[in-house]
C-alpha cells in the first residue's frame, strides 16, 4: 500500500479513537456500547474506502466528521444515532461508488475491493457483535468480499455496467454477499466470459446478468429491489449513466436505511407501509406524551397519566414503543398493559398490548432466552446493543387507529392486573396521532 493511502487512514483511525473516548465517558452508560460499536464499524468502513481511494479523497474525512457528530451529539439511547450512522455509511458508499466507477475508465481492483469490504461490513456488522471470534464471521467479512471483488474487477474491465448490476443485486439479497450470492457472481462472470469470447451483443450480456441476479431479488427488501432494478436497467442501457445510477441506487439505500431500517437494527416495514408513509399527508399532527424520557410500570407503580398538548384535541391513533422485563414465561395473547386515551374522565380509545403481537421481553434475541420463550416475539422495531453481553436487545412498536377522530386530553397507561409481580413494562414512546 502506498504511503499516500496509509496517510488517508488517519481520519478513520481518529474516528475509532474519538468514538472509544466518547463511549468511555458518556454519562448515559446505555449508549456506550452502541457508540463504541458504531464508531469501530464506521472506522472500518471508512478505512476500507480511504485505503482504496484512487487519489486523496475528502470523502473519508468528511464522513468521519459526520459520523463523529452523530455519535457524540445525537440523542443517546434512542434509535436515532444508529439510524443516522447507517444512513451516513450507506451514503458514503454511494458517493464512493459514484466517485470511482467511471464508465470510460473501469475501476481498478483495489477500488472495487475497498467498496466491497466496506459494503459487506455495513451489511454484516452485527455479526461482529454476536460472534466476534468465529471463523465464519471473519471469512464473511473478508474472504467473501475479496472473492467478489476479484471477480467483479475482471467483469468491470470489460463491462463496468454489468459488474455494477451483478454486484449490487447479489449484495441486496443478503443484504451482503453470502454463499449463494458468491456463486451467482462467479457463474455470472463465467457466463460473461463466454459471452465475450463468442462476441454476444450487449443484450446478451444483460440477459446473463439478469439471469444471475434475478434469483436473489425476492430475498431483498422490496424497496431495495425496486431501486436496484431501476439502477441496473439504467446501467445496462447506457454506460454514461453508470456512475450516476450507482450513486442513485446506494443513495436510495441510504434513505431507506434511515426510513425503514435496511440494517438488522431496525425492522424494514412492508412495501405498502413504506409507500403509504411516503405518499401520506405530510406533517402528521402528533403529540409525544413521553418527550425525552422512559416510563416503567411495575407492581409498585402500575399506572401513569400523561398530559397531552392541548392543541392536539383529538386523535385518530396511538403508537407506543415498549419492551417487557421478566416476561419470558407469559403465554401468547396475555394482555400486559392498556393504553387509554382519556377525555373528560372518559376513555375514548384504547390499545390493549398483547404479548407476542404488540410487545415481548427485551432479551428475546439472547440465545438462552430465545430457547425458553413461552410465546414467540413479534418483529423488533429497534434492536440495540445492551451495556453488557453480546446480543441485541429488542424494543417493539404497537399502534392502534380509529376511523374517526376521538377526543383526547391525556393518555393513561395501566399495567394489566394479574401479571406476575416481577413483570414490568417499559414505555419509550407514546405518540398520539391526529
Amino acid at each position: 500500500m502506498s504511503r499516500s493511502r496509509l496517510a488517508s487512514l488517519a481520519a478513520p483511525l481518529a474516528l475509532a479513537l474519538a468514538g472509544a473516548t466518547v463511549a468511555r465517558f458518556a454519562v448515559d452508560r446505555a449508549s456506550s456500547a452502541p457508540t463504541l460499536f458504531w464508531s469501530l464499524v464506521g472506522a472500518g468502513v471508512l478505512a476500507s474506502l480511504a485505503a482504496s481511494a484512487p487519489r486523496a479523497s475528502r470523502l473519508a474525512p468528511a464522513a468521519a466528521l459526520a459520523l463523529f457528530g452523530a455519535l457524540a451529539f445525537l440523542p443517546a439511547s434512542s434509535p436515532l444515532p444508529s439510524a443516522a450512522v447507517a444512513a451516513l455509511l450507506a451514503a458514503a458508499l454511494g458517493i464512493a461508488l459514484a466517485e470511482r466507477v467511471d464508465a470510460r475508465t473501469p475501476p481498478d481492483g483495489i477500488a472495487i475491493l475497498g467498496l466491497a469490504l466496506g459494503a459487506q461490513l455495513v451489511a454484516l456488522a452485527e455479526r461482529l457483535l454476536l460472534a466476534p471470534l468465529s471463523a465464519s464471521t471473519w471469512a464473511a467479512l473478508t474472504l467473501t468480499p475479496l472473492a467478489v471483488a476479484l471477480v467483479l474487477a475482471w467483469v468491470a474491465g470489460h463491462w463496468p455496467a454489468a459488474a455494477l448490476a451483478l454486484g449490487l443485486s447479489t449484495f441486496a439479497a443478503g443484504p451482503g454477499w453470502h454463499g449463494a450470492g458468491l456463486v451467482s457472481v462467479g457463474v455470472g462472470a463465467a457466463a460473461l466470459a463466454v459471452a465475450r469470447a463468442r462476441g454476444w451483443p450487449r443484450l446478451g450480456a444483460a440477459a446473463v446478468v439478469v439471469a444471475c441476479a434475478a434469483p436473489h431479488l425476492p430475498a431483498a427488501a422490496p424497496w431495495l429491489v425496486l431501486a436496484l432494478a431501476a439502477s441496473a436497467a439504467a446501467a445496462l442501457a447506457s454506460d454514461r449513466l453508470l456512475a450516476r445510477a450507482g450513486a442513485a441506487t446506494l443513495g436510495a439505500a441510504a434513505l431507506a436505511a434511515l426510513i425503514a431500517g435496511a440494517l438488522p437494527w431496525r425492522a424494514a416495514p412492508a412495501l405498502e407501509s413504506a409507500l403509504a408513509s411516503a405518499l401520506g399527508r405530510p406533517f402528521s399532527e402528533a403529540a409525544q406524551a413521553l418527550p425525552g424520557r422512559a416510563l416503567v410500570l411495575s407492581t409498585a407503580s402500575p399506572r401513569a397519566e400523561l398530559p397531552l398538548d392541548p392543541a392536539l384535541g383529538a386523535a385518530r391513533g396511538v403508537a407506543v414503543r415498549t419492551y417487557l422485563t421478566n416476561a419470558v414465561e407469559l403465554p401468547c395473547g396475555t394482555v400486559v398493559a392498556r393504553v387509554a386515551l382519556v377525555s373528560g374522565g372518559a376513555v375514548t380509545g384504547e390499545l390493549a398490548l398483547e404479548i407476542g403481537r404488540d410487545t415481548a421481553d427485551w432479551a428475546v434475541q439472547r440465545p438462552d432466552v430465545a430457547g425458553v420463550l413461552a410465546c414467540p416475539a413479534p418483529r423488533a422495531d429497534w434492536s440495540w446493543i445492551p451495556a453488557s453481553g453480546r446480543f441485541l436487545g429488542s424494543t417493539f412498536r404497537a399502534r392502534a387507529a380509529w376511523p374517526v377522530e376521538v377526543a383526547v386530553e391525556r393518555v393513561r397507561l395501566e399495567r394489566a392486573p394479574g401479571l406476575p409481580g416481577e413483570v414490568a413494562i417499559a414505555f419509550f414512546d407514546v405518540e398520539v396521532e391526529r
Partner: protein
Amino acid sequence: MRRALVALATGAAGSALAAAALPPGPEGLRGTLVVLPLALGLLGAVGAALGARPWPLEERVAALFAVLFALGQDRLGLPATAPLAALALFALAFVRAVRLLPALARGLARRSGRALPFGVVAFAVYLALLPWADAARAPNGDEPYYLLLTESLVSDLDIDLADEYASEAWRAFSERPVAPQAGDPTGPAGEVFSRHELFLPLLLAPFWAAGGLLGARLAMLGVAAALTAATLEAALALGASRRGSLRAWMLVALAPPVVTFSYQVWVEVPAALLVALALVAWGRMRAEGGRWTALRAAAFGVPLVLLPLLKLRLLAVAVPLAVVGLAGARVRRGLGLAAAAAVALAGISLLVVNGLVWGNPLRMHGLADLALFDVPLSRFAHGGIGLFFDGAFGLFAAAPLWLLVLPGAARAVARRSPVALALAAFAPYLVLVASRREWYGGWSPPFRYGLVALPALAAAVAVAMARRPSGGARVVVAGLAGATALRLAALAAEPGWAFSFADGRSALLDLATSRYAADFARLLPSAVRAQPALWIVPAVTCCLLLVAWRWPRRRPRDAASAGVAALLAAWVLLLLAAHRLPTGVAELEDPWISKSRGASWPGRWVPDRTRFPGGWYLPAGAEARFVPRAGGERVVIDVRWRAAEGGGEPVRLELRSRGELLGSFVARSDGTWRGDRLAARDWPAGAPLEIRCAQDAARPAGAAIVDRVELAWR
C-alpha cells in the same frame, strides 16, 4: 441568460406550488420546504449565468431524498428528526453554493459586477435557513425595539412608541410582551421613546410596509448578502489575491457569525456593510495612485458618516478609519476641507439633535463611559481576549476557521500590506468595547460587538490564504474547516444554540458538559469567569497556529484526513483532560455538577456578570454533588458561599462524602460572602463531595448560594 431565467422561474414556481400544496405543518420546516426551491433557483440562475455545470444528478437525487425525509420525518418513529430534516434541507443549498465556487472564481476576472453573483449566492443560502431559524427563536434583545420603531414609522410616521405598547403592536412578531426598557426617554405628553437609533428602522420601513416581519427579515438577508459581496470587493481592493479573497468570502458568507446574524435585526450587519464599502473606496483610491477624487471620497466618506447614525459607539470606528483614509493620501485642499466640514457637520448635528431630543448629546451614554483610564488593564485583557476566544461568544468559538486571521494579520504586518493599516484602524473601537464590563452579545449571536470589524478581518484571512498553503498550514486549515462545519451543522439544526446567554454560557458547551459529565469550562477561555484558561489557551493557540503555519513545509499526503484526525484527536485530549486533570476549582453552576434542586445565581438573564461571583442557589434540603478528580491523597477544601437574602434565621451548609458529615458552616443572610475551610483530610479517589443546605424542621427554610469549592491537593 435564458438558462438563468428558466432556473429562477422554475424555482419560483416550485416555491409557489409548495406554498399552495403543503398543508400546515411544523413551524419552520414547512417554510423551509416552501423557500428551498426559490433558493435553489437563485443558485441555479447564478450557475447558469456563470456557465457552471447544470445541477448534477446526484444532488437532485439527494434533494429528492431530503424533501421526502422532511415530509415524512414525523412518521419514522425516530425522535428529534425535525432538526435533522432542517439540516438536510439547508445542506442542499449550502452544498450547491460551495460547488458553484469554481464558476464564481472564474467570474472574478471580470471588472464590473463581479461581486453581484457572490451576493446572490449568499442571499440564497441565508434564505434557505431563514424559516427554520426564525421559527426557532422570537426576536429578542434589541430586535423588538428596532421592529417596534419600524412599525411606528410605518403606521403613524412617528417615533413615539406609547401607542405601540398600548395596542400591543409587538404581537406582530412576538408572543412575549415587549415593554419599554428601564431608562428609555419619555416625553411631556406621555410619549415613550426608544433608546435605539432611528437609522435602521428607517431603512427597514419600506420592507415592513410591504411584508411586515418577513419583509424586514428579507431586507436584513439582503444587507447580509451585500456585506459578503462588499467584503470580497474590499479584500480585492486592499490588494489580496483572487484566491485568498474567494476563500475569505467563503468564510464570511458561509460560516458564522454572518450566517447566524443574517436574518437578525441588529445594527451590526449594516454597520459592517458600511465599513466594507468604505474599505473598498479606500483600497481603490490607493490602487489608483493614492489620490482622492470627489466620487471616491464620497464613496469613502458617506458610509463613515452613516456609521454613527446606526449606533453612536460606531463613531469609534468611523473616526479612525477616516484618519487612516486621509493619512498619506493626496487630497486637493478644497476637497479635503469640504470633506472635513461634512464630517464635522454630521458629527455636530448628531450631537445637537441628541441634545435637543434626548437631553444628552451622547444619548444613553455619559462621558464616564469614555474614561478608559479608569478601567483596570485586566478588564481590557478579559474583554479583548474574550471577544475573540471566549467559548460562548468569541469569534473563534463561533467559527474556528476565523483563526486564520492570526497568520493573515502577521503576514500583512510583515509585508506592510494596507490590510494591516485597516486592521489597526479598528484598534480604538476594539479597545473601547473590550473595556465594557458586560457580556459581549447576550441575546444575540456571538461576536456582536466585533462584527463591524469583520471586513478587515476577512481581508486578513485573504492574505493568509493568498497562496496555496503548504505543509502544516493545510492540515490546520482542514482541521479548522472541519470544526467550523460541525459548528455550522449544529447551528443549522438548532439555531437557538447560536445565542449566548447573559451568564456567559453556551448551549452547545453545556450540552457536551452534561453529556460527558466533564468540566470543559475550566479548559476554555471565558471573559466572564477569570481563570488561567483565559490566558493560556489564546497564547498556546497562537503559538501552535503560527508554528503549524510554517512547519512542516512539505506538502502532506492527505491534508484533509490529517486535519480531521487532528481535530478528533483534539476532542479526545479535551475530554481526557476534563476528566483526568485534578479538580482544583468546582464552580457549582456548571452542568457537570449534579444538583437535586435550585437554580443558577444570579438568574440566567442578569447582565453584567462580572459583577457577580456566579453560583448556585441551594434551597434548604437541596444537595449539589460531584466527584472531584483527586490530585493527591489529602485535600484541603475551601467553600465560598453565603446565605441567601430573605431568611432571618441562620443557614447551615453541610459538606459530606458518601453520607459522612465532613463539616458544616453557619451564616446569617447579611449578604457577605464567606470563605470556609475544611482542614486537610484523606480523600480516596472516586469519593463524591456532597454540599447540602441543611433543613431544620424547627426553623423556617433558608437557602444558601454557593459560588465555588476549591480543592488543594496534598
